[in-house]
């Protein structure tokens, strides 16, 4: 119960930090930078590497019509994937270390996240990449232990 409450607090603080450091910076300009980038990915006119990063622009395109909706869509997606990353990280760490140490690891990571919000708000492909990677590791861990002698793990 206490652990869940602490994890919830970490999640809420992360969201607040994103709004403070990420979204406020976004409203000051980057949306104008990202709008042609978003459109360019969809119609294939933007240069590499962005033209090869399709998942997030296509995933968010139904929600984007102007600067405001672009900022909102990317902002909400950022928060969702950063929080998902923290949740997956907690699950991953609990496989290896005691729950208290895992909580420490999640808090430590949450402390690093605001540095990412300052420079990389709307770079949603990064938290998506991290979520898919850690999801892959969780999957791999289960595959690895299948039919495996315990001494090898």
């Amino acid at each position: 119960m206490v652990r869940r409450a602490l994890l919830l607090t970490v999640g809420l603080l992360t969201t607040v930090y994103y709004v403070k450091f990420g979204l406020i910076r976004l409203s000051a300009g980057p949306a104008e930078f990202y709008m042609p980038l978003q459109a360019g990915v969809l119609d294939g006119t933007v240069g590499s590497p962005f033209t090869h990063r399709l998942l997030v622009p296509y995933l968010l395109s139904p929600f984007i019509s102007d600067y405001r909706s672009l900022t909102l869509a990317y902002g909400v997606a950022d928060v969702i994937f950063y929080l998902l990353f923290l949740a997956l990280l907690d699950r991953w760490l609990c496989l290896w270390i005691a729950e208290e140490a895992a909580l420490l690891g999640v808090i430590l990571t949450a402390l690093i996240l605001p540095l990412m919000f300052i420079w990389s708000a709307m770079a949603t492909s990064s938290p998506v990449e991290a979520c898919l990677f850690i999801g892959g590791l969780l999957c791999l861990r289960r595959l690895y232990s299948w039919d495996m002698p315990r001494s090898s793990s």
Partner: protein
Amino acid sequence: MSKTALFLGYATLIILATLNRNSSIVLVAAYAAVMWPRRKERVIIGWGLIYLGLWAGVYGLIVLTRRAPGEWITPATVLAGNLSRWGYEQSIPYNLALLPLWVVAFLNRHRAPLFLQRLLWIMPLYLVPVLIYGMWHEVRLWLTLVPLLLPLAVWKNKAGK
């Protein structure tokens, strides 16, 4: 969940990750690194080849069907930015702040289970492109490595695991 479902789930993750970024090759490399002791099993080899083929196929298809009108950012531009005064004034404090964590992870690596140790093999595959194409002040580039390094950094034997 069945074993086949897990193999298929991993394949799905590779496809999605490749649609997101080409760095998804680390998922294929992670599979190879972790499954290395079981490399003589045909099922393991077979799925490994499928994963490699999926990554190459999806990324190849993206590159072939979406001919970029040039590079948005070139490695030379990125390097110039990284080596500029502004670049290192930004990147040095951020990366130095994280350094103790990574040093502890490195020192602890031999105490951790083999599974985690083998995952460290894939780090160069991620780090070298980051050094060439990445902006060093962007801490988000570390995010993917957090699940590899953090368990080592805060490692303490868990009874029964």
